[in-house]
C-alpha cells in the first residue's frame, strides 16, 4: 500500500492496521525518516518537500511491487509526505511484514534505497540564510546500486 500525503501519520496505528488479523506475520521491519536540523552547515528552521504528483505514486507502486516479487512479504506500506515540515517531523515511513525477519529487513532497506534515489521528491531547506535546494548524495546512489540484479 502506498500513500503520498501532506498530513502527518501515526506510526503505531499504521503498524496495527497493517498486521491486524494476519497471524502468519512474524516480523515487521520499518524505517521512519525524520527532518534533521543539521543536514547542512546552517541550522535548518524548516524544509519544504516538492514532488511530482502522479509520477510519485506510480514509481512507489512499482518499487513496492518489485519488493513483493523479490522477497516473501505478507504486507507492506510506504507513506511519503510533501509540503512544509519542521525539524523532528516525520517525512517517510516504510514498513515490510514477513514470516521471516531477513525478508522484512532486506526489503525495507531496498525500498528506502530506491525511494531515496528514484522517487521524485526535492527538499528545499529554509535556513537562517534563506532557501536552499538540497543536493543529491552519491552515497544514496551507491546504496541503491547494490540491489541491481547481476
Amino acid at each position: 500500500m502506498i500513500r503520498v500525503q501532506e498530513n502527518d501519520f501515526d506510526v503505531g496505528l499504521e503498524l496495527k492496521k497493517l498486521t491486524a488479523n494476519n497471524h502468519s506475520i512474524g516480523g515487521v521491519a520499518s524505517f521512519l525518516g525524520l527532518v534533521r536540523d543539521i543536514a547542512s552547515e546552517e541550522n535548518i528552521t524548516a524544509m519544504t518537500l516538492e514532488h511530482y504528483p502522479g509520477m510519485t505514486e506510480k514509481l512507489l507502486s512499482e518499487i513496492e511491487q518489485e519488493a513483493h516479487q523479490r522477497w516473501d512479504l505478507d504486507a507492506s506500506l510506504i507513506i511519503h509526505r510533501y509540503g512544509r515540515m519542521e525539524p523532528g517531523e516525520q517525512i517517510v515511513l516504510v514498513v515490510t511484514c514477513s514470516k521471516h525477519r531477513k525478508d522484512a529487513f532486506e526489503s525495507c532497506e531496498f525500498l528506502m534505497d530506491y525511494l531515496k534515489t528514484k522517487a521524485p521528491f526535492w527538499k528545499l531547506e529554509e535556513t537562517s540564510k534563506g532557501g536552499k535546494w538540497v543536493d543529491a548524495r552519491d552515497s544514496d546512489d551507491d546504496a541503491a546500486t547494490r540491489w541491481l540484479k547481476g
Partner: protein
Amino acid sequence: MKILYFAWLRTSIGKSTEEITPPAEVKTIGDLLDWLPSLGVNYSTALEKRDLLRVAVNQEYAELDHTINAGDEIALFPPVTGG
C-alpha cells in the same frame, strides 16, 4: 507537448509547466535539451549542466535517446532528494 519543471529547474526557468511545440527536427530528449536553451537565457542557464538533469517521459524515467511525441508529458528535474 506538455513540459514540467521541478525544484531549482522550476525556480530557475521561472515556471512549473508550459505547452511547447518544438520544430520537427526535435525527435528525442537529447534534441529537446539542445533546443530548449534557444527559448531564453533562463533556459540556457538552467539547462547548462546536463549531468544534473533527470528526465521523465509520461512519468517514467527516460534517457537522452528516447523518442518524444506531440502528446507526451515531459518532466525535467534535478536528482531527487526525498526520503
